[in-house]
């Protein structure tokens, strides 16, 4: 029970289960994987969970659903739309208190799971489609959600950089789609899309917690997942285009400018070099001792934040910073210099050890959160390289200085996006 490994449960479906009693809650997530094909289809897919969550046959209204969840000791049901590589993922999550902490014997697992599966698989219908009222309200909300990205300048700048960088690739499609095509779709089309997903999408279930055997064996006989195929990506285009760096500037009334730089790594999670890339990213901008944080913020006070992160299904890296617009040239130069420094081996052994320890410490901490355990394993399933955290840590430990230098050499600057105040 202590190795924190997900096991695949014997079932016709792909069910990944990590048994542990160390958490006070149990977590169940159901995933549907949908390849990104167009902005309009992405917009429709993203709308589906929002409409489903509004009401099912047994629980036809939000008020009834929320009242039921209260009775289930504040169980939570939520959905998210994710993008991993060139796939959209619809995630439905259920988290509820482990029954061992309650006096009442109410079979919380079963009751809350029934609510979740009723919402997903048994939607409330009218005239053989979704309820028009729910469809219209959620469509309006999704339009607001898409538009509201601009309120969060950090994520806005990162998203704009990715969109510009991959505008001719499927990865350039925003996970919530676009407002224009959302406005054009109909309730009927949406329901047809739902039926399509329900009959053919790749899907799987993740469970973390302390579940009774009887619950596990019964429950999955009752639900009907669309497909027996696990959510493995075989769709993402991973080629690195050869081209000049593009520089894009957008003006807006902001107090702090955002400088984001998108890179191609060509390295994905299933590749041997992935572990070295993790260390490269850590060394560059993964934590407070990273080269970028030290050079840009600590030594020169040029930014409040600067960090980097990788996308490991498509093979991208992003550096993101909040700066004074006058420092654009200097910060960009420093970013380029720091990457060159890593390639040249210009980093101390201490920095190298820090970078590794920082990732390992974070990964170990993921062992203490059911959501982090699931999120970590999700990525490895998608990339068809199921791996436990412990095994990943061991692989990171093996990374040497030379691996870092040769891996860093593969990182190519692709697009610089700069959001600044009007001049």
């Amino acid at each position, binding site marked *: 029970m202590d190795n924190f490994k997900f096991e695949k449960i014997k079932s016709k479906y792909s069910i990944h289960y990590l048994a542990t009693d160390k958490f006070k809650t149990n977590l169940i997530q159901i995933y549907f994987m949908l390849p990104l094909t167009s902005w309009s289809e992405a917009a429709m897919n993203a709308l589906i969970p929002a409409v489903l969550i509004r009401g099912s046959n047994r629980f036809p209204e939000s008020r009834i659903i*929320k*009242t039921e969840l209260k009775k289930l000791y504040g169980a939570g049901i939520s959905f998210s739309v994710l993008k991993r590589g060139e796939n959209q993922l619809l995630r439905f999550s259920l988290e509820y208190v482990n029954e061992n902490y309650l006096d009442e014997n109410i079979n919380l697992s079963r009751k809350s799971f029934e609510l979740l599966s009723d919402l997903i698989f048994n939607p409330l219908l009218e005239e053989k489609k979704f309820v028009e009222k729910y469809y219209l309200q959620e469509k309006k909300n999704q339009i607001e959600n898409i538009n509201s990205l601009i309120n969060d300048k950090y994520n806005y700048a990162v998203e704009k950089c990715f969109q510009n960088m991959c505008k001719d690739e499927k990865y350039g499609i925003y996970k919530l789609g676009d407002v224009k095509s959302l406005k054009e779709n109909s309730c009927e089309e949406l329901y047809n899309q739902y039926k399509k997903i329900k009959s053919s999408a790749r899907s799987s279930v993740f469970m973390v917690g302390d579940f009774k055997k009887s619950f596990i064996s019964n429950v999955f006989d009752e639900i009907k997942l669309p497909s027996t195929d696990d959510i493995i990506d075989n769709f993402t285009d991973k080629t690195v285009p050869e081209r000049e760096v593009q520089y894009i500037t957008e003006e807006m009334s902001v107090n702090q400018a955002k400088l984001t730089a998108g890179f191609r790594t060509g390295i994905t999670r299933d590749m041997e070099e992935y572990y070295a890339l993790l260390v490269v990213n850590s060394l560059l901008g993964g934590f407070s001792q990273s080269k970028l944080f030290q050079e840009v913020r600590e030594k020169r006070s040029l930014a409040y934040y600067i960090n980097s992160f990788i996308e490991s299904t498509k093979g991208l890296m992003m550096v993101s910073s909040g700066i004074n617009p006058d420092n654009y040239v200097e910060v960009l130069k420093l970013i380029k210099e720091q990457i060159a420094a890593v390639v040249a081996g210009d980093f101390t052994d201490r920095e190298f050890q820090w970078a590794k320890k920082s990732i390992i410490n974070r990964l170990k901490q993921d062992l203490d959160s059911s959501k982090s355990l699931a999120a970590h394993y999700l990525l490895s399933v998608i990339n068809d390289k199921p791996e436990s955290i412990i095994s990943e840590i061991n692989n990171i430990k093996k990374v040497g200085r030379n691996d870092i230098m040769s891996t860093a050499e593969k990182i190519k600057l692709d697009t610089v996006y700069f959001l600044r105040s009007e001049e």
Partner: protein
Amino acid sequence: MEKVYDKKMKEILIKEKLDNGLHIYIFNKKGFTKQYAMVSVDYGSNDIEFIDVETGEKVRTPEGIAHFLEHQLFEDKEASIFDKFADLGASANAYTSFNSTNYLFSSTENFNKALINLLNFVQTPYFTDKSVNKEKGIIIQEIKMYQDDPYWRSLFNLLSGLYSTHPVKNDIAGTVESVSSISPEDLYLCHKNFYQPANMDLILIGDLNEEKIINLVKENQLQKSFSDIKTPVKVIPEESKTVNKKHVEEEMNISRPLVQIAFKDIETPSTPKEIIKKEYAVNILLDILFSRSSVRYNKFYEKGIIDSSFSSTYIRKEDYGYIHLYGESRETGRMISAILESLKEIEKSEIHEGFMRIKKKYLGNYIKMFNNFSSLAAEFINYRRLGIDIFSLMKIIDEIKIEELYGYADILFNEDLMVESIVKNKQD
């Protein structure tokens, strides 16, 4: 050393008070990998005025100084504090709120060494003109970043409408001007006054050897001398029984308007237990009236007046309190008037019906609180400062009577004490 085992939650809590006044609390979590330590100083952005322990005179310090001090303590004479933590594979962080400053790290090994690092850097001030000036550049960038955050901006507009003198109206980080005026002497003064062991709590969570750790901390504390065990008297100016401004409005580059409404609560309960009880009672009332299982929320949602961004909470501290409603809406006028209209027709039956169902949810939330180390530490400190034992929380909640909710529903939604803060879209 006192050891408490809570049978229901299956949690072990160890408590110890050292001779110098430092309190230590250890949640012993068997089977967890992560170790978490937090020093919480009873000193936040609200505490800009106080009586100096040395001179006995009242001093007023620049806004944002508690947060500035938090940043500056990470500076050290010989080596960078962050470097020391990085060597141990631990990651350190800190945050300042209205009422406290918290320094923390999480680790998976070398816990004892990291703990000593933490205590040493928090208790060893080292400020120079050079380091202070460098920090000003960083903090001014931070202030600017928050100025681009529409929620944060409108929250402080709201607070400045609610309060005319209480320092909670000031941004935690201060202003560009106030931060620019901070000197090393100011920082030493605040450190001397507030960073006394008796004004701090140490919370440790993880699979830990409590006896060894307590001895280690004792030993560390014995090596240090503290000027005075007295803690400073905070001066909170008397706050008016009315609001400062009823309406505050601003324009920003955002997708749709954002509304924050508050009702100032001018009645402060007299005992800590009553404060907690009121905090929960009013939050339960708001839950019944405005949560997603309420009639109101669903009616407004269906009419398109609010969306899932809508939230309601009641803030209750020893020296201030208010009901806080938040939402994004294209129709700010309709949203506000619909809320106010609906508050005129609160039925006792509605409260009664909701009240019957709510306790299970609060019990669920209480159980969940023990799952996450950082929120457990923050909640624990919050209650401990008021002298409340975290394991007695459900008992306090159980004591809440429905009549109290009827009473709060009658008095708290007073339109004379209401403030609205709106951020509109620049292009509108």
